[in-house]
C-alpha cells in the first residue's frame, strides 16, 4: 500500500553555543564579518563543525494510511524536532518528507489562546490557528462547547479561567480537528488525571476512526494501548521501528533495564565520599523479583544496599534513607535505627559494613525516584549525609486497563484492602 507519510534521509542540524542559539545583534554580525576572514587565515582551513548538533540524522520511515504510530525516546532524542519538521514549523537540513494528506499538528494545547478574549472568541481564534475554516468551526461549535463543559463561562475572558478550565477548552477545540494526518506531541503531560484520561480517550477515538496519527509520549502504557507501531528515536536516529509492544520493551530495557540495579561504587577508600568517621563504598538499588528484572513496577519489591567503611572502632552507626520523588517531595524517611533495633545498639569495629533496606511492592507510585543516605551516630546525630546519584524509575503495570493508563496522583500507591457491605434496606 502507498504510504501517506514518507520521510527519507531526514536530518536537522542545529547550531549550538550561546551566540547563535540566542539572537545575534547587528553589531555582532558586522564584527563577525570582519573577523571571520582573519580567523580563517590564522587557523588555516577554519571551517569547524564543533558548534553544530544533528537533532535528527538520516531518519527514514513510511507511515501507512490509518496507522497510529507512537514515537518514543529519551529527552533530547529528537522526537520534538521530528514533529516540528513534519508539521512544517522548521525546515529540515537534509532529506525530504512527502505528505499525501492534510496535516494538523498539536504540539501544545491552546496555541494562540488570547487571555483577554472570551472562551467563545478563543474557540474561533484557536480553531483558525489550527487550520479550521470558519464554517467548520460554526458547525462544530456546539460539540466543542459540550465537550469542554464550559457553557456558563463562554463569555468570560479566559484569563479568569482556572488552569483546568483553560486546558479543557483548549483540548475541546483541538480534539475536533479532522485532518487526515494528526501529529500530537506530549499534550497529555499536562493536566490532572481526569483530564489526561479524557485526552487519551479522545485519542483512542481518533485512532479507531482510521485517521493517521503520529503520537509522541513518555507514557509507555498509552503508547502500547493506542499504537500498533512505535518508532524509537535515540540521538536523532531511529533505534527501533516495529510493533509497539516490542519497541517499548526494547526501549525500556535499554534505557532503564540496567538502572533498576544501578549502583554507585567507590573502590578507593581515600577518595570515597565521607569523612574521618565513615566513608561510603557502594549504594545500589536491586529488584527482588527474579521474574521482572527488566524494570521495577509499582508491584515489584526491591531493596537499597548501602555499604560503608567504619573508620572509628566502637562507633555506633545506623543508616537512614530519605526517599524523594521526581517532584523533590520526600516520599518517606526510613532508618535502620528503628528498622533493625538489635543491630542498632551495637558498637561497630572498624571495617566494611552493608546495611540493606527492604522495600515491599505496592509502595511507591509510578515515576522516577532518588534518595539521600544519612549516616547517624548514636541514634541521634547525623555525621554524614550523601545525596545519591542513583535514580530509579518505577513503571506502571503492563496489564493495567486502557481506561486507567493515566498516572494516578499520589506519592505512594499502596494496595489497600477494601470492603463494601450492605448495612440496611430502604
Amino acid at each position, binding site marked *: 500500500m502507498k504510504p*501517506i507519510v*514518507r520521510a527519507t534521509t531526514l536530518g536537522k542540524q*542545529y547550531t549550538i553555543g550561546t551566540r*547563535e*542559539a540566542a*539572537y*545575534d*545583534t547587528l553589531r555582532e*554580525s558586522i564584527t563577525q564579518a570582519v573577523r571571520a576572514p582573519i580567523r580563517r587565515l590564522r587557523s588555516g582551513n577554519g571551517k569547524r563543525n564543533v558548534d553544530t548538533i544533528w537533532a535528527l540524522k538520516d531518519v527514514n520511515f513510511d507511515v501507512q*494510511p490509518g496507522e497510529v504510530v507512537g514515537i518514543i525516546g529519551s529527552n533530547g532524542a529528537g522526537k520534538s524536532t521530528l514533529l*516540528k519538521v*513534519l*508539521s*512544517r*514549523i*522548521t*525546515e*529540515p537540513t*537534509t*532529506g*525530504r*518528507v*512527502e*505528505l*499525501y*494528506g492534510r*496535516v494538523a*499538528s498539536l*504540539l*501544545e494545547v491552546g*496555541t494562540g489562546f*488570547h487571555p*483577554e*478574549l472570551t472562551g467563545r*472568541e478563543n474557540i*474561533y*481564534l484557536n480553531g*483558525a*490557528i489550527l*487550520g479550521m475554516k*470558519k464554517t*467548520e468551526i460554526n458547525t*462544530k461549535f*456546539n*460539540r466543542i462547547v*459540550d*465537550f469542554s463543559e464550559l457553557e456558563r463561562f463562554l463569555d468570560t475572558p479566559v484569563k479568569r479561567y482556572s488552569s483546568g478550565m483553560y486546558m479543557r477548552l483548549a483540548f475541546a477545540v483541538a480534539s475536533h480537528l*479532522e485532518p*487526515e494526518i494528526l501529529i500530537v506531541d506530549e499534550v497529555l503531560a499536562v493536566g490532572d488525571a*481526569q483530564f489526561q*484520561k*479524557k485526552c487519551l*480517550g479522545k485519542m*483512542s*477515538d481518533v485512532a*479507531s*476512526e*482510521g*485517521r*493517521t496519527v503520529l503520537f509522541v509520549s513518555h507514557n509507555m502504557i498509552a503508547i502500547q494501548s493506542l499504537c500498533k507501531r512505535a518508532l524509537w528515536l535515540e540521538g536523532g536516529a531511529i533505534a527501533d521501528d516495529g510493533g509497539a509492544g516490542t519497541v517499548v520493551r526494547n526501549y525500556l530495557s535499554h534505557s532503564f533495564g540496567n538502572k533498576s540495579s544501578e549502583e554507585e561504587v567507590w573502590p578507593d577508600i581515600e577518595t570515597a565520599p565521607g569523612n574521618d568517621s565513615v566513608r561510603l563504598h557502594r549504594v545500589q538499588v536491586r529488584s527482588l523479583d527474579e521474574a521482572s528484572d527488566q524494570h521495577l513496577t509499582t508491584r515489584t519489591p526491591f531493596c537499597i544496599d548501602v555499604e560503608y567503611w567504619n573508620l572509628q572502632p566502637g562507633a555506633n552507626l545506623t543508616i537512614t534513607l530519605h526517599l524523594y520523588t521526581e517532584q523533590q517531595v520526600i516520599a518517606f524517611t526510613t532508618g535502620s535505627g528503628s528498622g533493625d533495633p538489635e543491630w542498632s545498639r551495637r558498637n561497630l569495629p572498624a571495617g566494611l559494613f552493608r546495611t540493606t533496606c527492604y522495600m515491599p511492592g505496592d509502595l511507591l507510585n509510578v515515576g522516577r525516584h532518588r534518595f539521600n543516605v544519612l549516616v547517624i551516630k548514636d541514634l541521634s546525630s547525623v555525621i554524614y549525609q550523601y545525596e545519591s546519584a542513583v535514580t530509579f524509575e518505577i513503571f506502571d503495570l503492563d496489564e493495567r486497563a486502557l481506561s486507567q493508563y493515566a498516572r494516578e496522583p499520589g506519592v505512594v500507591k499502596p494496595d489497600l484492602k477494601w470492603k463494601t457491605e450492605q448495612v440496611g434496606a430502604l
Partner: protein
Amino acid sequence: MGISSTNNEAAPISTANPTRNRTLENHQGPPEGLPEEPLVVIEPNGGWNALELRDLWAYRELLYFLTWRDVKVRYKQTELGVAWAIIQPLFTMLIFTLFFGRLAGVPSDNVPYPIFAFTGLLAWTFFSNAITTSGNSLVGSAHLITKVYFPRMIIPGAAVAAGLVDFAIAFVILVLLMIYYGVGITWNILMFPVMVLLTTVLALGTGMWLSALNVKYRDIRFVLPFMVQLWMYLSPVIYPASFLPAKLRSLLLLNPMTGIIEGYRSAMLGRPFNWIALAVSAAITLILLIYSSYSFRRMEKSFADIV
C-alpha cells in the same frame, strides 16, 4: 470535510469515562484514495523561495481572525477604548497647529492649517503604527511560530490590517473637520482608495521586512521608534512639500511617503495631484513589497529556530 454525523447531538459526550462506542459516531473512515502527488513536500530550500501565494490564499481566514484579535484586544481594559484611535492624531494635530501653524507660521498650501496637518497625520499615524506593530509582530508571536504552521507573512499582515480599523475611525474626524472648515468634496476623492491601498502596501512592505529582521536582530525594536520619528520629519506631514527649496523637493520624492501624503491632501482637499510624485511613490512601494516578500520568505525558514 463535511461532518455528516448527527448522533453526536443525541449523545452528548460524557466526560469521565469516554466509551469506545463513541468511535462509531463521527465516522470518517480512512481517507479513500490518496492523491497521486504529495499534497506537501518538505525539503530543505537554500536561497530564494517562491512566494507560495496559493498557500497564503488558503489561510486568508486566519488573516481575518488575527486581525480581528488584534483589533479586539488593542483597547481591552482601557478606559477610553477606541477613542484612542481619535485622540492620537487629533491631539498631535492640535499641538502641531499651535507650534508650527501659529507660532512658526509654516505655510499650508492655502488650506486651514489644522485640516492640512490632520490629513497628513491621518495617513502618517496609520503608516507609523502599522510599521511599528508589524515590525514587532513576529517576535511577539513566538509562541505561535514555534508551535504551529501557517504562512508567516500573515502575522505582520494582520498587524497592518488591524491598523486600517483605527484609520477608518480617525477618518470620521477628518470628515467632521472638513464640514467645520467648509472644505468641499471634489472628484479627486476617487483617488482616496488608491491612496489607502498605496499606504497599506507600503506599510506591509516595510513592516514585513522589519519584522523578519527583528527576529534575528532585536536591535530593530530600538531602531523602530527612532526611525519612525525621523521619517516623519522627512515626510511632508507638518509642512507642505512646496515649503522646501526645489532641490530638496526632488530629493524628498525618494521618500515614498511624500507622494502618498501629498496625494491624500489632493484627494481630500481638492488640490491638484502631483502625478510624478505619486508615480515615484507607487514604483518604490511596489519594488519594496516585492523585495521584502522574497526576503521574508528567505528569512522565515529560520524563524522557528531563532525566535
